[in-house]
């Protein structure tokens, strides 16, 4: 506590004497950050929310981060292990990380390989409910070769072995602090989860769950000149519009996260001149899933269940219908009304980075109502007296669901009208985000259960490698009652040819060959109408004119370089 007051004193003194040479820890006072979804825990492994991972990233660090270009940069490690520098085994089955010497935790004890080994043990412990378990897929064992060397062995060849300990979602925990919190006890360690000891530039001074967090500079941080701020005040609560207003119009806060509001509103707020709206493009994609199984109530127990594949959707089973739906959408209009500079038209499931993006499916970029109508006519969908198409007694009427968000509801309304032009009736439904993304197996309204014909949401993944993302559309990922409705194959698409490509991708190390496979799988998903990619979205935040040093990053947590933030003089 004394140190904390000392830091304030130092900051005040620094301000009074005005030393432009700056570069001094704690010289810039307090920075105020607004996360309208309030963080509720500071342990990234026990939360599925981005907000919690973001809030913990100020304290906890991974071995390497992704920078704003999507490249990996070493943080706690000396360098990122690759085949070239010998950190990766030739058979691709293991990887060796070397820690930077001399790094200490904020309590003064040294960071060792044992902490890294423990972190893997912590997440992989049965019954711990680790939400970042997918980062440890195929990990056989993690061991400490010496106090500064960690070796990760995989069960099979792993051409992209950067799941564990890379990116803010997979940060290192201190063994001494968490050693009694393994497995089922993880969630009960409130004290630890609310105030983890980290190696990062700040440490937790006060944490109020779902309200606010105060961090103070970590006096043991490895760079003696950083961080420039003496403390961070992070406030939660409100909505995107009020968050943007607090930075852009009133100037109460220095930074607001995820200010996804209609472009004309942001533009008007930015006119106040107190800050600007910043966008960074990563691999954030707004997309639609088409249900391949019968989602109507009449299906009873088999509702949206793939089973043996004998339960196809009455309308969407027709490939012509799926193609026509994709063709009828004017994506540019969706971008203009809802996203502005924070969205781009895309036809790809893998929107970035460039080496993986396909151009073979660009037909969807230009909407073509006429062609869509023709496709449906030829496929035997005849317009009824009400203008809605019918085939074999089945009416082309679809239930289209998404989460509650004004931009998404506008998109829904626009698409309903576009589909109306090709004789498809659409019923809209919006569901509160906490339910829709909640994964509660007892609720019928979750995105996994998908008791609707079409659903729309945004999808993103850590890092630049799309292997796990594309792997999400294989047969074994279909959510079913027997998997407790878990799985990422929302569309219930099951195609052995696609599964074969996915298996091949997991065994291919050569970048060019991987890129070719990724594009092939991407095209397959789009051509088959499994998903309709809509908008390549940027990560949009608001930043004050008085804040410098922030590098807006869409590949990792937004606060990844908070140590470099300074106050503009």
């Amino acid at each position: 506590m004394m140190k904390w007051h000392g830091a304030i004193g130092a900051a005040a003194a620094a301000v009074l004497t005005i030393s432009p040479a700056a570069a001094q820890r704690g010289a810039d006072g307090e920075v105020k950050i607004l996360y309208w979804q309030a963080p509720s825990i500071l342990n990234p492994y026990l939360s599925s929310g981005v907000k919690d991972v973001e809030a913990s990233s100020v304290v906890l660090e991974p071995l390497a981060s992704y920078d704003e270009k999507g490249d990996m940069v070493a943080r706690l490690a000396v360098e990122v292990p690759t085949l070239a520098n010998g950190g990766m085994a030739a058979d691709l089955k293991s990887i060796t990380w070397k820690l930077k010497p001399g790094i200490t935790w904020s309590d003064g004890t040294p960071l060792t390989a044992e902490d890294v080994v423990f972190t893997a043990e912590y997440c992989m412990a049965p019954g711990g409910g680790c939400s970042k378990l997918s980062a440890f897929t195929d990990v056989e064992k993690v061991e400490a070769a010496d106090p500064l060397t960690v070796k990760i062995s995989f069960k099979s060849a792993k051409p992209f072995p950067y799941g564990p300990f890379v990116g803010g979602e997979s940060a290192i925990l201190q063994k001494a602090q968490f050693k009694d919190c393994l497995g089922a006890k993880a969630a009960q360690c409130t004290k630890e989860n609310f105030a983890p000891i980290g190696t990062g530039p700040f440490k937790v001074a006060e944490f109020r769950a779902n309200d606010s967090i105060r961090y103070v500079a970590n006096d043991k941080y490895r760079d003696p000149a950083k961080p420039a701020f003496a403390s961070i005040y992070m406030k939660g609560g409100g909505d995107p519009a009020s968050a943007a207003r607090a930075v852009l119009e009133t100037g109460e806060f220095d930074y607001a996260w995820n200010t996804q509001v209609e472009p004309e509103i942001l533009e008007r707020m930015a006119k106040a001149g107190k800050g600007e709206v910043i966008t960074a493009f990563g691999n954030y994609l707004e997309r639609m899933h088409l249900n391949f199984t019968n989602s109507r109530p009449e299906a009873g127990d088999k509702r949206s269940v793939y089973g043996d594949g004998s339960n196809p959707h009455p309308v969407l089973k027709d490939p012509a219908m799926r193609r026509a739906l994709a063709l009828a959408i004017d994506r540019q209009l969706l971008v203009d009304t809802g996203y502005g500079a924070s969205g781009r038209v895309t036809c790809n499931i893998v929107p970035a980075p460039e080496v993986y993006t396909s151009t073979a499916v660009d037909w969807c970029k230009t909407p073509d109502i006429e062609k869509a109508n023709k496709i449906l006519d030829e496929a035997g969908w005849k317009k009824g007296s009400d203008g809605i198409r019918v085939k074999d007694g089945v009416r082309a009427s679809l239930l289209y669901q998404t989460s509650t968000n004004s931009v998404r509801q506008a998109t829904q309304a626009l698409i309903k009208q576009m589909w109306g032009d090709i004789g498809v009736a659409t019923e809209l439904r919006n569901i509160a985000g906490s339910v829709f993304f909640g994964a509660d197996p007892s609720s019928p309204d979750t995105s996994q259960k998908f008791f609707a014909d079409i659903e729309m949401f945004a999808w993103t993944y850590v890092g630049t490698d799309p292997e796990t993302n594309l792997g999400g559309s294989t047969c074994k990922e279909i959510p079913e009652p027997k998997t407790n409705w878990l799985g990422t194959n929302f569309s219930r698409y099951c195609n052995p040819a696609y599964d074969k490509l996915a298996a091949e991708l997991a065994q291919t190390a050569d970048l060019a060959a991987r890129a070719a496979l990724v594009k092939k799988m991407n095209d397959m998903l789009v051509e088959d109408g499994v998903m309709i990619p809509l908008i390549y979205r940027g990560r949009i935040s608001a930043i004050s004119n008085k804040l410098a040093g922030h590098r807006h990053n869409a590949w990792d947590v937004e606060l990844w370089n908070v140590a470099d933030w300074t106050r503009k003089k």
Partner: protein
Amino acid sequence: MSELDLIAPRADEAAEPAALDQAHRSLWSDVRRQFLRHPGALVGMIVLAAIVLIVLAGPYLWTVSPDRINPRIANRGMSLDHPLGTDNLGRDLFAQVMAGGRVSLAVGISAMLIAVTLGTTIGVLAGFFRRLDGILMRMTELFLALPILPLLLVIILLFRDVLRDLFGPSAGIFLLIVFVIGITSWMQTARVVRAEVLGVKERDFVLAARSIGARPYKIIFRHILPNVLSPIMVSGTLGVASAIIIESALSFLGLGFPPDFPTWGRLLYDGANYMTLNPSRVIWPGLAISLTVLSVNFIGDGLRDALDPRLRS
């Protein structure tokens, strides 16, 4: 007030001297006469009638579709083409306010009727029959103690698809919402009515009625109900307002009407972010809600005065 009181009887005498000679003046003709003398109630009645008329007949005169999207004319202010302006997708706000009014008024009034009927029945039974009091009031407390939102969630999740199949998406959801709001907002009415009934039933005229052998239902309808009408009216008018608001909250949670189905609450909610850009998006739906609630309240006020025998001249 005093002037009105002086003038009014004379006007009555002039208008219907013959009527005065007839010995029988019914309760409702008295109420009507009294009601029409209440200036607030009269204005409220006219405003509400105007709103209902615009909402019902308006769409036949103003034939612009409320859900036709045209992004080229987004966020327009008031003009001749679009009397109340347009929203961010270029939908005509005037048409939306009228379409929304139909839904909001229908939801508000039907839900209120359910809640008031239920609340009054339970309140009168509990107040009048001592044997039922305990069980009915415990039930009321049970309902009051229930967390409303999870309850609504469960009800809607259970019945949404069934009703959607039976009546179609809009009508099914309408029935469900009206029902759900109705059965979760009768408790206050029941408690207030019970308290009033307890007081009224000990009064001398009830004792007199009882002593000449009047049956309980006669006593309830003839003597108790007219004397407890004022709290019923008040809770009814408040009920309309809160039903409109609850509906918009439900729609926001995704449990109400589909998102492209305009209601006043939803228009107001959607427009809130655009307040600085296009004020008419919140002014008009907001004004419609306030005017409706205010005029319903005034009508309730007038009815209460008219129904109170002690205030009747």
